[in-house]
Protein backbone atom coordinates (compact mmCIF):
# COMPACT_ATOMS: atom_id res chain seq x y z
CA UNK A 1 0.00 0.00 0.00
CA UNK A 2 3.05 2.25 0.40
CA UNK A 3 2.95 3.06 -3.30
CA UNK A 4 -0.55 4.53 -3.28
CA UNK A 5 0.52 8.14 -2.47
CA UNK A 6 3.23 7.92 -5.13
CA UNK A 7 0.77 6.79 -7.76
CA UNK A 8 -1.68 9.43 -6.62
CA UNK A 9 0.95 12.11 -7.29
CA UNK A 10 1.82 10.68 -10.72
CA UNK A 11 -1.88 10.43 -11.53
CA UNK A 12 -2.49 14.06 -10.59
CA UNK A 13 0.34 15.24 -12.87
CA UNK A 14 -0.98 13.11 -15.78
CA UNK A 15 -4.50 14.29 -14.99
CA UNK A 16 -3.52 17.94 -15.41
CA UNK A 17 -2.07 17.17 -18.85
CA UNK A 18 -5.25 15.31 -19.81
CA UNK A 19 -7.39 18.21 -18.62
CA UNK A 20 -5.50 20.70 -20.79
CA UNK A 21 -5.98 18.56 -23.88
CA UNK A 22 -9.62 17.91 -23.06
CA UNK A 23 -10.42 21.59 -22.45
CA UNK A 24 -9.16 22.52 -25.90
CA UNK A 25 -11.24 19.75 -27.40
CA UNK A 26 -14.24 20.80 -25.33
CA UNK A 27 -14.08 24.31 -26.77
CA UNK A 28 -13.92 23.04 -30.33
CA UNK A 29 -16.43 20.23 -30.03
CA UNK A 30 -18.71 21.81 -27.43
CA UNK A 31 -18.86 25.34 -28.79
CA UNK A 32 -18.39 24.84 -32.53
CA UNK A 33 -19.92 21.33 -32.78
CA UNK A 34 -16.91 20.16 -34.80
CA UNK A 35 -15.84 16.54 -34.17
CA UNK A 36 -12.17 17.43 -34.22
CA UNK A 37 -10.45 14.02 -34.27
CA UNK A 38 -7.16 15.66 -35.27
CA UNK A 39 -6.91 17.45 -31.94
CA UNK A 40 -4.45 14.91 -30.59
CA UNK A 41 -2.18 15.52 -33.59
CA UNK A 42 -1.84 19.15 -32.52
CA UNK A 43 -0.67 17.65 -29.22
CA UNK A 44 1.94 15.70 -31.21
CA UNK A 45 3.01 18.87 -33.01
CA UNK A 46 3.34 20.65 -29.65
CA UNK A 47 5.42 17.85 -28.18
CA UNK A 48 7.75 17.62 -31.18
CA UNK A 49 8.10 21.39 -31.52
CA UNK A 50 9.15 21.60 -27.85
CA UNK A 51 11.55 18.70 -28.38
CA UNK A 52 13.14 20.23 -31.49
CA UNK A 53 13.46 23.69 -29.96
CA UNK A 54 15.09 22.39 -26.77
CA UNK A 55 17.17 19.48 -28.08
CA UNK A 56 18.19 20.80 -31.51
CA UNK A 57 17.99 24.61 -31.32
CA UNK A 58 19.11 24.58 -27.63
CA UNK A 59 16.57 27.11 -26.49
CA UNK A 60 15.59 27.64 -22.88
CA UNK A 61 12.66 25.37 -21.94
CA UNK A 62 10.27 28.19 -21.02
CA UNK A 63 11.02 30.10 -24.23
CA UNK A 64 10.58 26.88 -26.22
CA UNK A 65 7.15 26.31 -24.67
CA UNK A 66 6.09 29.87 -25.51
CA UNK A 67 7.18 29.47 -29.15
CA UNK A 68 5.38 26.10 -29.22
CA UNK A 69 2.21 27.83 -28.11
CA UNK A 70 2.44 30.28 -31.01
CA UNK A 71 3.13 27.47 -33.50
CA UNK A 72 0.15 25.45 -32.31
CA UNK A 73 -2.08 28.52 -32.42
CA UNK A 74 -1.10 28.98 -36.08
CA UNK A 75 -1.72 25.28 -36.76
CA UNK A 76 -5.20 25.74 -35.32
CA UNK A 77 -5.76 28.76 -37.55
CA UNK A 78 -4.64 26.83 -40.62
CA UNK A 79 -6.84 23.85 -39.78
CA UNK A 80 -9.91 26.03 -39.32
CA UNK A 81 -9.37 28.03 -42.52
CA UNK A 82 -8.24 25.22 -44.82
CA UNK A 83 -10.21 22.20 -43.63
CA UNK A 84 -13.15 22.97 -41.37
CA UNK A 85 -14.30 26.26 -42.86
CA UNK A 86 -14.96 24.77 -46.34
CA UNK A 87 -16.91 21.95 -44.64
CA UNK A 88 -19.06 24.16 -42.41
CA UNK A 89 -22.34 23.24 -44.11
CA UNK A 90 -21.45 19.55 -44.59
CA UNK A 91 -22.96 16.75 -42.49
CA UNK A 92 -21.25 15.84 -39.21
CA UNK A 93 -20.10 12.56 -40.70
CA UNK A 94 -18.12 14.16 -43.53
CA UNK A 95 -16.49 16.56 -41.09
CA UNK A 96 -15.56 13.71 -38.75
CA UNK A 97 -13.98 11.73 -41.57
CA UNK A 98 -12.13 14.79 -42.91
CA UNK A 99 -10.72 15.29 -39.41
CA UNK A 100 -9.50 11.68 -39.41
CA UNK A 101 -7.84 12.31 -42.77
CA UNK A 102 -6.16 15.37 -41.29
CA UNK A 103 -5.04 13.31 -38.29
CA UNK A 104 -3.51 10.65 -40.55
CA UNK A 105 -1.77 13.32 -42.66
CA UNK A 106 -0.09 14.88 -39.61
CA UNK A 107 0.75 11.48 -38.13
CA UNK A 108 2.38 10.15 -41.30
CA UNK A 109 4.19 13.42 -41.99
CA UNK A 110 5.70 13.62 -38.51
CA UNK A 111 6.65 9.95 -38.69
CA UNK A 112 8.42 10.43 -42.02
CA UNK A 113 10.17 13.66 -41.05
CA UNK A 114 11.16 12.82 -37.48
CA UNK A 115 11.41 9.04 -37.45
CA UNK A 116 9.58 6.53 -35.28
CA UNK A 117 12.03 6.52 -32.35
CA UNK A 118 10.47 7.71 -29.07
CA UNK A 119 12.05 10.92 -27.74
CA UNK A 120 12.04 12.87 -24.48
CA UNK A 121 12.10 16.65 -24.16
CA UNK A 122 15.31 17.28 -22.19
CA UNK A 123 14.86 19.49 -19.14
CA UNK A 124 17.21 21.08 -16.66
CA UNK A 125 14.97 19.53 -14.00
CA UNK A 126 15.59 15.92 -14.98
CA UNK A 127 16.35 13.63 -12.07
CA UNK A 128 15.70 16.20 -9.34
CA UNK A 129 13.14 15.09 -6.76
CA UNK A 130 11.67 16.21 -3.46
CA UNK A 131 11.31 13.34 -0.98
CA UNK A 132 8.53 13.42 1.55
CA UNK A 133 8.75 10.21 3.55
CA UNK A 134 8.61 7.36 1.05
CA UNK A 135 7.11 9.53 -1.67
CA UNK A 136 9.39 11.06 -4.30
CA UNK A 137 7.95 13.96 -6.30
CA UNK A 138 10.02 14.97 -9.29
CA UNK A 139 10.43 18.68 -10.08
CA UNK A 140 9.17 17.95 -13.57
CA UNK A 141 5.82 16.74 -12.24
CA UNK A 142 5.51 19.82 -10.04
CA UNK A 143 6.24 22.05 -13.04
CA UNK A 144 3.71 20.16 -15.17
CA UNK A 145 1.04 20.38 -12.50
CA UNK A 146 1.72 24.09 -11.90
CA UNK A 147 1.69 24.96 -15.59
CA UNK A 148 -1.48 22.96 -16.04
CA UNK A 149 -3.28 24.82 -13.24
CA UNK A 150 -2.14 28.20 -14.58
CA UNK A 151 -3.42 27.36 -18.07
CA UNK A 152 -6.77 26.14 -16.73
CA UNK A 153 -7.24 29.32 -14.65
CA UNK A 154 -6.32 31.51 -17.63
CA UNK A 155 -8.85 29.72 -19.82
CA UNK A 156 -11.51 30.05 -17.15
CA UNK A 157 -10.83 33.79 -16.81
CA UNK A 158 -10.97 34.15 -20.60
CA UNK A 159 -14.32 32.37 -20.87
CA UNK A 160 -15.91 34.08 -17.86
CA UNK A 161 -14.41 37.59 -17.84
CA UNK A 162 -13.74 38.74 -21.41
CA UNK A 163 -16.11 39.90 -24.12
CA UNK A 164 -14.96 37.17 -26.51
CA UNK A 165 -15.51 34.59 -23.78
CA UNK A 166 -19.00 35.91 -23.33
CA UNK A 167 -19.59 35.59 -27.08
CA UNK A 168 -18.39 31.98 -26.90
CA UNK A 169 -20.78 31.22 -24.08
CA UNK A 170 -23.59 32.90 -25.98
CA UNK A 171 -22.89 30.78 -29.03
CA UNK A 172 -22.97 27.60 -26.96
CA UNK A 173 -26.40 28.49 -25.64
CA UNK A 174 -27.98 29.47 -28.91
CA UNK A 175 -26.04 29.78 -32.11
CA UNK A 176 -28.66 31.61 -34.17
CA UNK A 177 -29.55 34.05 -31.44
CA UNK A 178 -25.87 34.84 -30.92
CA UNK A 179 -25.50 35.52 -34.61
CA UNK A 180 -28.58 37.77 -34.58
CA UNK A 181 -27.25 40.01 -31.82
CA UNK A 182 -24.04 40.55 -33.76
CA UNK A 183 -21.57 37.86 -32.73
CA UNK A 184 -19.10 37.41 -35.57
CA UNK A 185 -19.27 33.64 -35.96
CA UNK A 186 -16.38 33.38 -38.41
CA UNK A 187 -14.06 35.26 -36.10
CA UNK A 188 -15.22 33.18 -33.17
CA UNK A 189 -14.46 29.96 -35.05
CA UNK A 190 -10.91 31.18 -35.63
CA UNK A 191 -10.38 32.32 -32.05
CA UNK A 192 -11.81 29.12 -30.58
CA UNK A 193 -9.66 26.97 -32.82
CA UNK A 194 -6.52 28.93 -32.01
CA UNK A 195 -7.13 28.77 -28.26
CA UNK A 196 -8.10 25.10 -28.35
CA UNK A 197 -4.99 24.22 -30.35
CA UNK A 198 -2.78 26.26 -28.04
CA UNK A 199 -4.13 24.24 -25.11
CA UNK A 200 -3.37 21.02 -26.99
CA UNK A 201 0.13 22.26 -27.80
CA UNK A 202 1.03 23.13 -24.22
CA UNK A 203 -0.42 19.83 -23.10
CA UNK A 204 1.77 17.95 -25.60
CA UNK A 205 4.89 19.87 -24.63
CA UNK A 206 4.30 19.13 -20.93
CA UNK A 207 3.67 15.47 -21.68
CA UNK A 208 7.04 15.31 -23.43
CA UNK A 209 8.68 16.28 -20.15
CA UNK A 210 7.23 13.25 -18.36
CA UNK A 211 6.98 10.41 -20.88
CA UNK A 212 8.56 9.61 -24.28
CA UNK A 213 6.90 11.11 -27.35
CA UNK A 214 6.43 9.44 -30.76
CA UNK A 215 4.59 10.28 -34.02
CA UNK A 216 1.50 8.16 -33.42
CA UNK A 217 1.00 9.40 -29.85
CA UNK A 218 -1.87 11.69 -30.85
CA UNK A 219 -4.81 9.34 -31.32
CA UNK A 220 -5.03 8.30 -27.69
CA UNK A 221 -5.23 11.84 -26.20
CA UNK A 222 -8.04 12.71 -28.62
CA UNK A 223 -10.05 9.73 -27.49
CA UNK A 224 -9.23 10.28 -23.83
CA UNK A 225 -10.23 13.90 -24.35
CA UNK A 226 -13.62 12.77 -25.61
CA UNK A 227 -13.90 10.41 -22.63
CA UNK A 228 -13.20 13.29 -20.23
CA UNK A 229 -15.71 15.53 -21.99
CA UNK A 230 -18.29 12.76 -21.78
CA UNK A 231 -17.54 12.24 -18.10
CA UNK A 232 -17.61 15.93 -17.34
CA UNK A 233 -20.54 16.81 -19.55
CA UNK A 234 -19.23 19.89 -21.40
CA UNK A 235 -18.26 22.22 -18.61
CA UNK A 236 -14.87 23.35 -17.34
CA UNK A 237 -15.31 22.09 -13.78
CA UNK A 238 -16.63 18.77 -15.07
CA UNK A 239 -13.60 18.38 -17.35
CA UNK A 240 -11.23 19.13 -14.45
CA UNK A 241 -12.92 16.52 -12.27
CA UNK A 242 -13.08 14.03 -15.16
CA UNK A 243 -9.40 14.56 -16.02
CA UNK A 244 -8.21 13.94 -12.48
CA UNK A 245 -10.45 10.87 -12.15
CA UNK A 246 -8.92 9.50 -15.34
CA UNK A 247 -5.29 10.32 -14.48
CA UNK A 248 -5.50 8.91 -10.96
CA UNK A 249 -7.45 5.79 -11.84
CA UNK A 250 -5.02 4.99 -14.68
CA UNK A 251 -2.01 5.44 -12.47
CA UNK A 252 -3.45 3.37 -9.61
CA UNK A 253 -4.89 0.80 -12.00
CA UNK A 254 -1.50 0.37 -13.68
CA UNK A 255 0.09 -0.26 -10.28
CA UNK A 256 -2.47 -2.68 -8.86
CA UNK A 257 -4.26 -4.38 -11.72
CA UNK A 258 -2.10 -4.56 -14.83
CA UNK A 259 0.03 -2.05 -16.69
CA UNK A 260 -0.73 -3.83 -19.98
CA UNK A 261 -4.36 -2.76 -19.70
CA UNK A 262 -3.56 0.78 -18.47
CA UNK A 263 -5.01 2.61 -21.46
CA UNK A 264 -8.14 0.47 -21.36
CA UNK A 265 -9.06 1.72 -17.88
CA UNK A 266 -10.27 5.05 -19.29
CA UNK A 267 -12.58 3.27 -21.67
CA UNK A 268 -13.88 0.80 -19.11
CA UNK A 269 -14.80 3.72 -16.83
CA UNK A 270 -16.47 5.41 -19.80
CA UNK A 271 -18.49 2.34 -20.73
CA UNK A 272 -19.56 1.83 -17.13
CA UNK A 273 -20.72 5.43 -16.75
CA UNK A 274 -22.49 5.58 -20.10
CA UNK A 275 -24.35 2.42 -19.26
CA UNK A 276 -25.71 3.96 -16.07
CA UNK A 277 -26.05 7.54 -17.31
CA UNK A 278 -26.04 7.90 -21.10
CA UNK A 279 -25.76 11.70 -20.73
CA UNK A 280 -22.48 11.65 -18.77
CA UNK A 281 -21.78 12.34 -15.11
CA UNK A 282 -22.85 15.98 -15.01
CA UNK A 283 -24.99 15.89 -18.12
CA UNK A 284 -25.12 19.64 -18.67
CA UNK A 285 -23.59 21.80 -21.37
CA UNK A 286 -21.29 24.76 -20.61
Amino acid at each position, binding site marked *: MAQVPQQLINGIAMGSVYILGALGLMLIFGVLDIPHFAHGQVYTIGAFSAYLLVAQVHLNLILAIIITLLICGLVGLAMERLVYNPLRSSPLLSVA*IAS*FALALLIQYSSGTILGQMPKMVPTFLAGKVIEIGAVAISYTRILVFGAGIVAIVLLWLFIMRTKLGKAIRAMTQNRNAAELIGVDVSQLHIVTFMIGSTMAGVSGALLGLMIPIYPSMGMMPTMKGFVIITLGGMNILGAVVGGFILGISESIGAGFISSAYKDSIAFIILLAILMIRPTGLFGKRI
Partner: protein
Amino acid sequence: MQRLNLHSGLISWIAVGIILLIMLLIGNGLVVYLIGIWAIYLVLASSLNLLLGYTGLFNMATSIFFGIGAYTSAILASRFGISFWACWLAAGIMAAAVGAIVGYPALRTRGLYFAIVTFAFLWIGTQVMTNWRSITGGPNGIGAIPNPNAIGTITFDSTRAKAALIVVFALVIFYIINRIARSRVGRVFIAIRENEVLAQSGGFNVAVYKLASFVLASFFAGIAGSLYAHFITFISPDSFGLDLSLFILAMVAIGGAGTVWGPAVGAMIFTFLPEYIRGPLDPYRFIIFSLVFLLLMIFIPKGIVGSISEIWAKRRRAKVMKMTT
Protein backbone atom coordinates in the same frame (compact mmCIF):
# COMPACT_ATOMS: atom_id res chain seq x y z
CA MET B 1 -38.25 3.03 -65.34
CA GLN B 2 -37.97 0.25 -62.73
CA ARG B 3 -37.07 -2.17 -65.52
CA LEU B 4 -34.41 0.11 -66.90
CA ASN B 5 -32.75 0.43 -63.48
CA LEU B 6 -32.79 -3.32 -63.07
CA HIS B 7 -31.10 -3.76 -66.43
CA SER B 8 -28.36 -1.19 -65.86
CA GLY B 9 -27.78 -2.76 -62.42
CA LEU B 10 -27.43 -6.22 -63.94
CA ILE B 11 -25.08 -4.94 -66.66
CA SER B 12 -22.74 -3.35 -64.14
CA TRP B 13 -22.72 -6.54 -62.07
CA ILE B 14 -21.83 -8.64 -65.10
CA ALA B 15 -19.17 -6.12 -66.17
CA VAL B 16 -17.53 -6.19 -62.75
CA GLY B 17 -17.62 -9.99 -62.70
CA ILE B 18 -15.97 -10.28 -66.14
CA ILE B 19 -13.26 -7.71 -65.35
CA LEU B 20 -12.40 -9.50 -62.10
CA LEU B 21 -12.33 -12.90 -63.81
CA ILE B 22 -9.95 -11.66 -66.52
CA MET B 23 -7.70 -9.97 -63.98
CA LEU B 24 -7.63 -13.13 -61.84
CA LEU B 25 -6.74 -15.31 -64.82
CA ILE B 26 -4.05 -13.23 -66.48
CA GLY B 27 -2.83 -10.95 -63.66
CA ASN B 28 0.61 -11.40 -62.10
CA GLY B 29 1.11 -12.44 -58.48
CA LEU B 30 0.78 -8.94 -57.08
CA VAL B 31 -2.43 -8.19 -58.99
CA VAL B 32 -4.02 -11.46 -57.88
CA TYR B 33 -3.03 -10.83 -54.27
CA LEU B 34 -4.40 -7.27 -54.41
CA ILE B 35 -7.70 -8.49 -55.85
CA GLY B 36 -8.03 -10.87 -52.90
CA ILE B 37 -7.32 -8.03 -50.48
CA TRP B 38 -9.73 -5.78 -52.35
CA ALA B 39 -12.49 -8.39 -52.04
CA ILE B 40 -11.93 -8.60 -48.27
CA TYR B 41 -12.02 -4.79 -47.99
CA LEU B 42 -15.18 -4.83 -50.09
CA VAL B 43 -16.93 -7.01 -47.50
CA LEU B 44 -15.69 -4.83 -44.64
CA ALA B 45 -16.55 -1.55 -46.39
CA SER B 46 -20.02 -2.67 -47.41
CA SER B 47 -20.75 -4.00 -43.92
CA LEU B 48 -19.72 -0.61 -42.52
CA ASN B 49 -21.75 1.10 -45.25
CA LEU B 50 -24.81 -0.69 -43.90
CA LEU B 51 -24.17 1.06 -40.55
CA LEU B 52 -22.69 4.36 -41.65
CA GLY B 53 -24.55 4.93 -44.89
CA TYR B 54 -27.94 3.47 -44.04
CA THR B 55 -28.57 3.38 -40.27
CA GLY B 56 -26.22 6.32 -39.65
CA LEU B 57 -24.13 4.58 -36.97
CA PHE B 58 -20.52 5.75 -36.76
CA ASN B 59 -18.89 2.42 -35.94
CA MET B 60 -15.16 2.58 -35.25
CA ALA B 61 -14.79 -1.05 -34.20
CA THR B 62 -15.11 -2.76 -37.59
CA SER B 63 -11.53 -3.99 -37.38
CA ILE B 64 -12.23 -5.76 -34.07
CA PHE B 65 -15.15 -7.73 -35.49
CA PHE B 66 -12.90 -8.55 -38.43
CA GLY B 67 -10.28 -9.68 -35.91
CA ILE B 68 -12.74 -11.77 -33.90
CA GLY B 69 -13.69 -13.59 -37.08
CA ALA B 70 -10.06 -14.08 -38.06
CA TYR B 71 -9.01 -15.44 -34.66
CA THR B 72 -12.08 -17.70 -34.37
CA SER B 73 -11.45 -19.20 -37.76
CA ALA B 74 -7.66 -19.50 -37.27
CA ILE B 75 -7.98 -21.20 -33.87
CA LEU B 76 -10.69 -23.61 -35.01
CA ALA B 77 -8.80 -24.57 -38.17
CA SER B 78 -5.22 -24.76 -36.91
CA ARG B 79 -5.76 -26.13 -33.37
CA PHE B 80 -8.87 -28.27 -33.82
CA GLY B 81 -8.53 -29.15 -37.50
CA ILE B 82 -12.04 -28.02 -38.34
CA SER B 83 -12.81 -27.52 -42.03
CA PHE B 84 -12.76 -23.99 -43.48
CA TRP B 85 -16.33 -24.54 -44.66
CA ALA B 86 -17.49 -24.65 -41.04
CA CYS B 87 -14.98 -22.09 -39.81
CA TRP B 88 -16.19 -19.15 -41.85
CA LEU B 89 -19.72 -19.56 -40.57
CA ALA B 90 -18.48 -19.97 -36.99
CA ALA B 91 -16.39 -16.83 -37.44
CA GLY B 92 -19.43 -14.87 -38.60
CA ILE B 93 -21.60 -16.17 -35.77
CA MET B 94 -18.93 -15.43 -33.16
CA ALA B 95 -18.53 -11.84 -34.41
CA ALA B 96 -22.31 -11.41 -34.53
CA ALA B 97 -22.65 -12.70 -30.94
CA VAL B 98 -20.03 -10.26 -29.69
CA GLY B 99 -21.74 -7.58 -31.78
CA ALA B 100 -25.01 -8.25 -29.97
CA ILE B 101 -23.36 -8.17 -26.54
CA VAL B 102 -21.46 -4.93 -27.26
CA GLY B 103 -24.16 -3.32 -29.37
CA TYR B 104 -26.94 -3.66 -26.80
CA PRO B 105 -25.42 -1.21 -24.29
CA ALA B 106 -23.44 0.82 -26.85
CA LEU B 107 -26.51 1.67 -28.92
CA ARG B 108 -27.95 3.60 -25.99
CA THR B 109 -25.63 6.40 -27.03
CA ARG B 110 -26.02 8.47 -30.19
CA GLY B 111 -23.99 10.21 -32.86
CA LEU B 112 -20.44 10.96 -31.92
CA TYR B 113 -20.79 9.31 -28.52
CA PHE B 114 -21.50 6.04 -30.26
CA ALA B 115 -18.25 6.53 -32.19
CA ILE B 116 -16.37 7.03 -28.93
CA VAL B 117 -17.96 4.00 -27.27
CA THR B 118 -17.07 1.79 -30.24
CA PHE B 119 -13.56 3.24 -30.14
CA ALA B 120 -13.41 2.22 -26.46
CA PHE B 121 -14.36 -1.30 -27.49
CA LEU B 122 -11.77 -1.23 -30.28
CA TRP B 123 -9.06 -0.29 -27.83
CA ILE B 124 -10.01 -2.90 -25.24
CA GLY B 125 -10.23 -5.46 -28.04
CA THR B 126 -6.71 -4.78 -29.32
CA GLN B 127 -5.35 -4.97 -25.77
CA VAL B 128 -7.04 -8.33 -25.24
CA MET B 129 -5.64 -9.65 -28.55
CA THR B 130 -2.14 -8.56 -27.54
CA ASN B 131 -2.21 -9.76 -23.94
CA TRP B 132 -4.35 -12.92 -23.85
CA ARG B 133 -1.42 -15.06 -24.96
CA SER B 134 -2.85 -18.52 -24.26
CA ILE B 135 -5.67 -17.98 -26.77
CA THR B 136 -4.43 -15.43 -29.30
CA GLY B 137 -0.69 -16.10 -29.22
CA GLY B 138 -0.06 -12.52 -28.03
CA PRO B 139 1.87 -10.09 -30.22
CA ASN B 140 3.27 -13.02 -32.27
CA GLY B 141 -0.19 -13.97 -33.44
CA ILE B 142 -1.11 -17.28 -35.04
CA GLY B 143 0.78 -18.68 -38.03
CA ALA B 144 0.46 -21.63 -40.40
CA ILE B 145 -3.31 -21.34 -40.80
CA PRO B 146 -4.37 -24.06 -43.25
CA ASN B 147 -5.66 -23.24 -46.74
CA PRO B 148 -9.39 -23.68 -47.35
CA ASN B 149 -10.28 -27.37 -47.75
CA ALA B 150 -10.79 -28.71 -51.26
CA ILE B 151 -14.28 -29.29 -52.65
CA GLY B 152 -14.08 -32.47 -54.69
CA THR B 153 -11.27 -31.88 -57.16
CA ILE B 154 -11.14 -28.09 -56.74
CA THR B 155 -8.27 -27.22 -54.43
CA PHE B 156 -7.50 -23.85 -52.88
CA ASP B 157 -3.76 -24.12 -52.33
CA SER B 158 -2.58 -21.35 -54.68
CA THR B 159 -3.04 -17.63 -54.07
CA ARG B 160 -4.90 -17.42 -57.38
CA ALA B 161 -7.46 -20.04 -56.36
CA LYS B 162 -7.89 -18.53 -52.90
CA ALA B 163 -8.33 -15.04 -54.36
CA ALA B 164 -11.01 -16.39 -56.72
CA LEU B 165 -12.79 -18.05 -53.79
CA ILE B 166 -12.68 -14.82 -51.78
CA VAL B 167 -14.01 -12.81 -54.72
CA VAL B 168 -16.99 -15.18 -54.99
CA PHE B 169 -17.66 -14.87 -51.24
CA ALA B 170 -17.28 -11.09 -51.39
CA LEU B 171 -19.60 -10.59 -54.35
CA VAL B 172 -22.29 -12.78 -52.75
CA ILE B 173 -22.06 -10.85 -49.47
CA PHE B 174 -21.99 -7.54 -51.37
CA TYR B 175 -25.15 -8.60 -53.18
CA ILE B 176 -26.89 -9.68 -49.96
CA ILE B 177 -26.01 -6.41 -48.20
CA ASN B 178 -27.38 -4.40 -51.10
CA ARG B 179 -30.55 -6.48 -51.15
CA ILE B 180 -30.98 -5.77 -47.44
CA ALA B 181 -30.33 -2.08 -48.02
CA ARG B 182 -33.02 -1.92 -50.71
CA SER B 183 -35.57 -3.97 -48.81
CA ARG B 184 -38.23 -2.67 -46.44
CA VAL B 185 -35.79 -3.17 -43.56
CA GLY B 186 -33.22 -1.04 -45.39
CA ARG B 187 -35.74 1.75 -45.74
CA VAL B 188 -36.35 1.64 -42.00
CA PHE B 189 -32.57 1.94 -41.53
CA ILE B 190 -32.57 5.06 -43.71
CA ALA B 191 -35.53 6.45 -41.78
CA ILE B 192 -33.52 5.99 -38.55
CA ARG B 193 -30.55 7.79 -40.07
CA GLU B 194 -32.68 10.69 -41.25
CA ASN B 195 -34.80 11.10 -38.13
CA GLU B 196 -34.76 8.66 -35.28
CA VAL B 197 -37.70 10.17 -33.40
CA LEU B 198 -39.84 10.21 -36.51
CA ALA B 199 -38.98 6.58 -37.28
CA GLN B 200 -39.92 5.63 -33.73
CA SER B 201 -43.25 7.45 -33.95
CA GLY B 202 -43.85 5.77 -37.31
CA GLY B 203 -44.25 2.57 -35.29
CA PHE B 204 -40.81 1.03 -35.81
CA ASN B 205 -38.87 -0.27 -32.84
CA VAL B 206 -35.75 1.78 -33.48
CA ALA B 207 -33.64 0.01 -30.85
CA VAL B 208 -34.31 -3.40 -32.42
CA TYR B 209 -33.55 -2.20 -35.95
CA LYS B 210 -30.34 -0.53 -34.85
CA LEU B 211 -29.20 -3.66 -33.03
CA ALA B 212 -30.14 -5.76 -36.06
CA SER B 213 -28.02 -3.62 -38.39
CA PHE B 214 -25.11 -3.72 -35.94
CA VAL B 215 -25.28 -7.50 -35.55
CA LEU B 216 -25.58 -8.00 -39.32
CA ALA B 217 -22.58 -5.79 -40.00
CA SER B 218 -20.57 -7.65 -37.34
CA PHE B 219 -21.55 -10.98 -38.89
CA PHE B 220 -20.24 -9.99 -42.32
CA ALA B 221 -17.09 -8.43 -40.86
CA GLY B 222 -16.48 -11.72 -39.02
CA ILE B 223 -16.73 -13.70 -42.26
CA ALA B 224 -14.28 -11.26 -43.86
CA GLY B 225 -11.92 -12.02 -40.97
CA SER B 226 -12.13 -15.73 -41.65
CA LEU B 227 -11.40 -15.18 -45.36
CA TYR B 228 -8.42 -13.00 -44.44
CA ALA B 229 -6.98 -15.55 -42.00
CA HIS B 230 -7.08 -18.36 -44.58
CA PHE B 231 -5.85 -16.10 -47.37
CA ILE B 232 -2.78 -14.68 -45.60
CA THR B 233 -2.35 -17.79 -43.33
CA PHE B 234 -0.88 -15.59 -40.59
CA ILE B 235 -2.63 -13.14 -38.24
CA SER B 236 -1.41 -10.85 -35.46
CA PRO B 237 -2.99 -8.01 -33.46
CA ASP B 238 -1.32 -5.41 -35.73
CA SER B 239 -3.70 -6.32 -38.54
CA PHE B 240 -6.81 -5.44 -36.54
CA GLY B 241 -6.01 -2.07 -34.98
CA LEU B 242 -7.27 1.48 -35.24
CA ASP B 243 -5.58 2.08 -38.61
CA LEU B 244 -7.69 -0.56 -40.32
CA SER B 245 -10.91 0.81 -38.83
CA LEU B 246 -9.98 4.29 -40.06
CA PHE B 247 -9.12 2.95 -43.52
CA ILE B 248 -12.49 1.23 -43.79
CA LEU B 249 -14.27 4.40 -42.69
CA ALA B 250 -12.25 6.24 -45.33
CA MET B 251 -13.15 3.70 -48.03
CA VAL B 252 -16.84 4.19 -47.34
CA ALA B 253 -16.50 7.97 -47.19
CA ILE B 254 -14.37 8.32 -50.31
CA GLY B 255 -16.54 5.93 -52.31
CA GLY B 256 -19.75 7.46 -51.02
CA ALA B 257 -21.66 6.47 -47.88
CA GLY B 258 -25.16 5.16 -48.53
CA THR B 259 -24.49 4.31 -52.18
CA VAL B 260 -24.35 0.80 -53.65
CA TRP B 261 -21.03 0.98 -55.47
CA GLY B 262 -19.33 3.45 -53.12
CA PRO B 263 -17.66 0.81 -50.91
CA ALA B 264 -16.40 -1.08 -53.99
CA VAL B 265 -14.82 2.06 -55.46
CA GLY B 266 -13.43 3.15 -52.08
CA ALA B 267 -11.93 -0.28 -51.44
CA MET B 268 -10.43 -0.24 -54.92
CA ILE B 269 -8.69 3.10 -54.33
CA PHE B 270 -7.38 2.00 -50.95
CA THR B 271 -6.04 -1.31 -52.22
CA PHE B 272 -4.35 -0.25 -55.41
CA LEU B 273 -3.32 3.38 -54.94
CA PRO B 274 -0.76 2.88 -52.11
CA GLU B 275 0.79 -0.05 -54.01
CA TYR B 276 1.32 1.98 -57.15
CA ILE B 277 2.75 5.14 -55.56
CA ARG B 278 6.29 3.80 -55.65
CA GLY B 279 9.62 4.83 -57.18
CA PRO B 280 11.17 8.03 -55.83
CA LEU B 281 7.97 8.87 -53.97
CA ASP B 282 8.03 5.62 -52.01
CA PRO B 283 9.00 7.08 -48.61
CA TYR B 284 6.24 9.66 -48.89
CA ARG B 285 3.47 7.41 -50.14
CA PHE B 286 1.45 7.46 -46.93
CA ILE B 287 1.73 11.25 -46.76
CA ILE B 288 0.56 11.57 -50.38
CA PHE B 289 -2.18 9.10 -49.71
CA SER B 290 -3.55 10.87 -46.64
CA LEU B 291 -3.30 14.21 -48.45
CA VAL B 292 -5.36 12.85 -51.36
CA PHE B 293 -7.85 11.49 -48.83
CA LEU B 294 -8.14 14.86 -47.08
CA LEU B 295 -8.53 16.83 -50.33
CA LEU B 296 -11.22 14.41 -51.56
CA MET B 297 -13.13 14.88 -48.28
CA ILE B 298 -12.89 18.67 -48.49
CA PHE B 299 -13.89 18.98 -52.14
CA ILE B 300 -16.35 16.07 -52.52
CA PRO B 301 -17.70 15.32 -49.03
CA LYS B 302 -20.38 13.04 -50.55
CA GLY B 303 -17.77 10.69 -51.99
CA ILE B 304 -17.03 9.72 -55.58
CA VAL B 305 -20.10 7.60 -56.31
CA GLY B 306 -22.33 9.90 -54.27
CA SER B 307 -21.23 12.96 -56.25
CA ILE B 308 -21.52 11.25 -59.63
CA SER B 309 -25.04 10.04 -58.96
CA GLU B 310 -25.96 13.53 -57.77
CA ILE B 311 -24.75 15.00 -61.06
CA TRP B 312 -26.74 12.37 -63.00
CA ALA B 313 -29.86 13.09 -60.99
CA LYS B 314 -29.48 16.82 -61.71
CA ARG B 315 -29.08 16.20 -65.43
CA ARG B 316 -32.08 13.91 -65.52
CA ARG B 317 -34.13 16.55 -63.72
CA ALA B 318 -32.99 19.17 -66.22
CA LYS B 319 -34.01 16.89 -69.09
CA VAL B 320 -37.46 16.32 -67.64
CA MET B 321 -37.85 20.08 -67.13
CA LYS B 322 -36.95 20.67 -70.76
CA MET B 323 -39.43 18.07 -71.96
CA THR B 324 -42.30 19.51 -69.93
CA THR B 325 -41.79 23.13 -70.99
